[in-house]
């Protein structure tokens, strides 16, 4: 009981700099968009079809999360309120990925 009451109090006690959070989230969004573009291009060039392409996408998500953690100097919680370096903006990223995957597959392997 005491743990349950103390936990939200701790969260409320911390005050965050909103401008810095917006800046960091913009950086994450930019990185995710570029990463999904690059992964889509690579998947199209390699001629992947079906689930193999999505496997490449999730491998690139892992690489991106690793690079973000290196950029944050292993101190993710001092730049972001929650620990979610993997699950950021996948709807946007997957749409971009599929767009460039299909485009490059068509350009390289079909025509």
């Amino acid at each position, binding site marked *: 009981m005491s743990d349950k009451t103390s936990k939200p109090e701790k969260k409320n006690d911390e005050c965050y700099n909103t401008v*810095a959070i917006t*800046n960091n989230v913009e950086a994450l969004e930019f990185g995710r968009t*570029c*990463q999904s573009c690059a*992964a889509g291009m690579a998947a199209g060039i390699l001629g992947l079809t079906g689930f193999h392409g999505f496997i490449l996408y999730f491998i690139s998500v892992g*690489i991106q999360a690793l*690079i973000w953690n290196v950029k944050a100097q292993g101190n993710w919680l001092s730049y972001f309120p929650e620990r979610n370096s993997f699950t950021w903006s996948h709807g946007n990223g997957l749409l971009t990925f599929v767009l460039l995957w299909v485009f490059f597959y068509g350009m*390289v392997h079909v025509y």
Partner: protein
Amino acid sequence: MASTIYRLITIVSLLSLIHCAYSAAQHRFYLRLTEQPFVSLPADVVAQTVISLVALIYGTSYLANPFQYIKKDQHHDRTCDEALNCPSFITFENRSKAMSPEFAMLRTLKQQQRQRQTSSRKETHSGRVSETIHSSESTDSQE
């Protein structure tokens, strides 16, 4: 300086990725001409694609805005007076300056100067001028 390096990495890896696309397209064209079935791309093209993919992710994620601290003020040693300082609200032209000893000293000095001026004028001019000086002295005393 650092951002130039990351921009260079990004541009080079993007060009390398496009070069990979061109090589893969040429490979497919060659296979179609020689009527061989497509199995997989040559290993060097695959390797170049993967390396340029990783380099592109690295370059773009460092090209984005640098992360900023979100938790607290970076200036730990600031006192409350410094943090809540509003210089635009400070007014120096208020009546409490009359209470300072420097102001009283200045005032006596000014009065002495005026008296000296009036005395010199009295010596040179006629009584009509001295009347006006008397009136100005009365305004000084009102101040």
